[in-house]
C-alpha cells in the first residue's frame, strides 16, 4: 500500500470514503474511529458526491471568540454563494459540544447554513484542519468530492490580538468565485488564525 501514502504523492487526494478506508493500516477505517454526524445524530458522509458545485466545511466552536466574530462574514458569504450552488456546513469538532449546544449557538448567531458534528475528528484529520475558524472547500467530481482549499476565511486576523480594521484578502470568496467561474483556485492552503483544534481532546 506504500504507493498510496500521501507523503509520497505530495498532494492531497481524497476521492471518496472508500479511498480513506483503504489507506494505511487496517484500523484506519473511519467506521472504527467514529463518524461525522448531523445535528440529528445521523451519520453524514462529507465526501459523498452531491449536486453542489462546491461544499464549504467551516470548522467552528461555540466558545471560540474569533470564530464567533466571523459570523457576519459567514452570513455574507452564505447569502452570496448559496444561491449559486455552494453548500455551507458549520463543523463542530469539540466532542463536548452536543447537538443541543450547536443548535443554541447557531440560533444565537443567526446561522442559516447546515451544521455537522465531528466529535471524533474524522473530517478534521481528513483535511488536516487545525484551527477554528477554518474552511475546507471541496468540489464535486465524478466519483466524490475533492478538497481544493483549506485555510482562513480572510486575512482580517493576523494573530491573537492582532487584527486589521478590515480584511485585505478575501481568500474563501476568491476560491469560491474561481470554482464557479471554472478557473483554477488561486490558493490551496492558507494559514488560519483562531483557536487550536488540537487543544480539544
Amino acid at each position: 500500500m506504500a504507493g498510496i501514502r500521501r507523503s509520497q504523492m505530495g498532494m492531497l487526494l481524497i476521492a471518496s470514503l472508500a479511498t480513506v478506508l483503504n489507506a494505511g493500516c487496517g484500523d484506519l477505517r473511519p467506521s472504527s474511529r467514529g463518524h461525522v454526524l448531523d445535528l440529528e445524530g445521523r451519520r453524514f458522509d462529507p465526501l459523498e458526491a452531491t449536486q453542489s458545485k462546491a461544499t464549504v466545511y467551516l470548522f467552528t466552536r461555540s466558545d471560540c471568540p474569533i470564530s464567533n466574530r466571523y459570523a457576519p462574514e459567514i452570513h455574507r458569504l452564505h447569502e452570496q454563494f448559496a444561491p449559486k450552488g455552494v453548500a455551507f456546513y458549520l463543523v463542530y469538532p469539540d466532542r463536548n459540544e452536543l447537538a443541543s449546544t450547536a443548535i443554541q449557538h447557531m440560533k444565537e448567531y443567526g446561522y442559516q447554513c447546515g451544521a455537522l458534528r465531528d466529535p471524533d475528528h474524522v473530517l478534521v484529520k481528513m483535511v488536516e484542519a487545525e484551527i477554528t475558524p477554518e474552511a475546507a472547500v471541496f468540489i464535486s467530481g465524478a466519483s466524490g468530492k475533492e478538497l481544493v482549499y483549506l485555510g482562513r476565511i480572510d486575512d482580517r486576523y493576523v494573530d491573537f490580538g492582532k487584527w486589521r480594521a478590515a480584511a485585505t484578502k478575501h481568500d474563501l470568496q476568491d476560491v469560491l468565485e474561481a470554482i464557479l467561474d471554472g478557473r483554477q483556485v488561486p490558493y490551496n492552503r492558507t494559514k488560519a488564525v483562531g483557536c487550536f483544534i488540537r487543544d480539544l481532546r
Partner: protein
Amino acid sequence: MRSPSFMISRSLLLLAGLTAWLVPIGCTDDDMPSANNSSMVVQPTFNKDIAPIIFEHCAACHRPGESAPFSLLTYRDASKRAEQIAKVTADRYMPPWLPRPEHGHFRGVRRLSDEQIDAIGRWQTQGRQEGDPADLPPVPQWPQGWQLGQPDLIVTMDEPYTLPASARDVFRTFVIPIPIESARYVKGLELRPGNPRIVHHAVVEIDQTPSSRYLDKRDPQPGFDGMAGSGESQSPPGFLVGWLPGKTPRLAPPGMAWRLEKKTDLIVSLHMLPSGKPEQIQVSAGFFFTDEPPTRFPFVFKIGSESIDISPGQDNYRISDHYVLPVDVQVLSIYPHAHYLGKQMTGLATLPDGTKKPLIQIDDWDFNWQDQYYYREPIFLPKGTTIAMQYRYDNSERNLRNPSNPPHRVTYGPGSSDEMGDLWLQVLPRTPQELAVLKSDYARKLSHLRIGGFKKMLEVRPNDWHTHNTLALWYIQAGRIEEAKQHFQASIRLADDYAIGRYNLGNIFQLQNQMDKAIDLYEQAIAIDPGYAEAYNNLGLALQAQGKRAAATEQFYAALRARPDFVDAHCNLGNALTTEGQYAKAIDHFEQAIRIKPNFALAHQQLGEVLSITSHPQAALARFNKAMQLQPDWWAPYEAAAWLLATYPEQTTHRPQQAVRLAQHASKLTSHRDAAVQATLATAYAMAGKYDLAALAADEAIALARTSGNKSLEQKVQERLKIYHQYNAGRQPVPEAAQP
C-alpha cells in the same frame, strides 16, 4: 485515465506536517500519553504549577461574567485551550501589559516572568497533566458587583444601545446625566460596562455644558459616534478615568477627592468589539462621595504633538516634545496615548542636575490595551525638570493594525483612522499656590501645542472657517493678538453668515479699545443671529465704555431676553443698575446670577459691593468671604473686604488690623502691580496707625496709576499722601472725615 480510487486535484495542495499526520492515524493512539513522558524528571501539572499563575494573573478577567471571552478557572477550561494559552503567553500578548520592565515601577503589573511562561509551555507540550488535586490552590474570591463597595449614587444609560454583529470595531460615546442636588466631592468613580465582553476600553469624562447632550440628541440611536465627547467635555479635575478589562478601580488617596458640580453629565466613550451577534449594552457608573473637601489638588496635563502628519508608507515617523516643570511635583500616574499607527513610546524626565528618570517605555504599542499606569511610589520631580516624550509611528502596509489599506495620509484627530500622540501625566504640586503657577505656565504650553495642531488642520482644509476661528482663540490664549485677528478675519471672509467669527473679532477690537469697530461687528453678528446673547452682552459693554449708559443697559436686557439664565449678563446689568443708583434692582440681578451659578465668585463679589454701598457691611463681608473661598487666587474680594474693614465707620466693622492683612494679601496676589490695590493697602496702613508704611504704599499707588494713565486715582492718592505725612509727623490717628 484516472484510477477509480484517486482523482488528481486540478490544483496541487501542499501538505504541511505530513509525517505527523500519518503517525496518529490509527497506528498509534494519540489519546495515550507518549512513552517519553514517563522519563521526564519534572513535569508541570495544572494543579501545582499552572493554576497559581492563572489564578493570580488571568482569572480576574477570565472568569464567568467578566470581560474575557472565556473562563479559565478549571483544569478543563485551561486544558481545552492549552496551546492557545502557551502561544499567547509566550508572545506576551497575554496577560496584556505594555510597559517595559525597569522603566517605571507600576502598581498592578500583570506581566508574567520568563519562568512562568516556560512552565506553561512545558505543561502544554508535556501532556497537560492535571496533577494531584491536593496541590490545587483555592480559587480566589472576588467581590461580587461593585468592586469599591456600594456606591453612594448609581447612574445608568437611559436605554440600552444595540451593538450590531458587524465585523468592524465600534467607537461610541454615551451621555448620562448625574442627578445631584448640590456639588459633591467624589473620591471614587467605578464604571460597570453592563456587557463587559464587548467593551475593549472606555474613557470617562464630564461635561458641565449641554453640548454633549446636544450631539446625543442629533443621533437617533443612544449616544453618538466617536471616542470623544463634545469639545466642552473634559476629565474630572486632576484625574483621568478609564476602564479596561481587569483594571481595578481605585479610590482617590485621602484629601484628593474632586468636586462634581450639579447639572454635570457623565460622558462615557466606549471602544466596542462586536462578538458576531447583536449585543445590548447599558453602562452604569457608581459614584463614591465624601464630605471631606480636598486638601491636595492633582493636575493632569499632556505633552506631545497635535501637528502629526504622516505620509502613506512612512514606517518610522517620529514626534517629540518636552516641558520644563515650573514647580516641584510628584508624578502619580502616566497615560500614553496613540492610535493604530503608534509603535513605540518613550517618556523620560531629566532633573536639573542631569539625572535621568525613565517614566515609561513601550516597545510594541497596542491601542487595544492602552492604560493609565500608577507608580508604586510617586516620582518626585523638582522644579526645572524636563519631561520629554518621543513616539514612533508606522503608516506602512507592514503595520497590520493600519486602519487604512492602502495607507493614506494621516493627521491629528480623535477618529480611529486619525492619529494622536499624547503623553498624559497626573501630578501633585506641593501647594494650591504652586498648582496655580503650574496651571498658568502650562496654559501657555498647551496653547503652543494647539496652535501647531490647528495650523496643520488649516494646511489640510484651508477654507474651514470654524478652524480659523478656533486657531484664533488659541492665539488669544497665547497672547498673540494680531495673529488671532488675522484668523478671525479669515473666518469672516470665508463665511458671510458666520456670526461667531464676527463676535470674536468684535471682542478683539473691544480689548484694543476700538469700540466703534467692535460695535459694528457685534451688530453684524446680531443681524445674522438675533438670538446671540453673548453678542448683546458684549455690545452692552462696548457702549458702556463709550459712556452710553442707557443704550448699554438696553443691550444687557436684550441679552437676558435671548438667554434668561445668562449669568454674565445678569452681573453686567447689575453693575449698570448700580451705577444708575437702582440698587434694589441691581441686587436682584446679582442674586439671580448666584441662583443660576452658585459658585460664581464675581457675582458674590459684586453683590458684596452693592451691599457695601447700601450700608449692609456684615452681609457685604459675607459675600466677599464667599468670593475668596470660591476663588482664592483672585485679589478683588480681599481688596474690597480690606477697604470696607478699614474705612467703615461703625465700631463692629472697623477692624484696621484685619484690613491690613487682607490688603497685603491682595497686594501679593497682584504682585504689588495694581494701583487701586496699593491705594487700599495705603489706606489700611493709615487706619491702623502705620503712617510710614501707608506713605510707601501710596507712593507705589501713585506711580502705578501714572503708568496706567489713571489720573483720578493718582490725584486722590496724592491728596491722601499729604495727610499721611502730616499724621506720621504727629503720630495721631487719621480722623475718619479725612478718608474718602
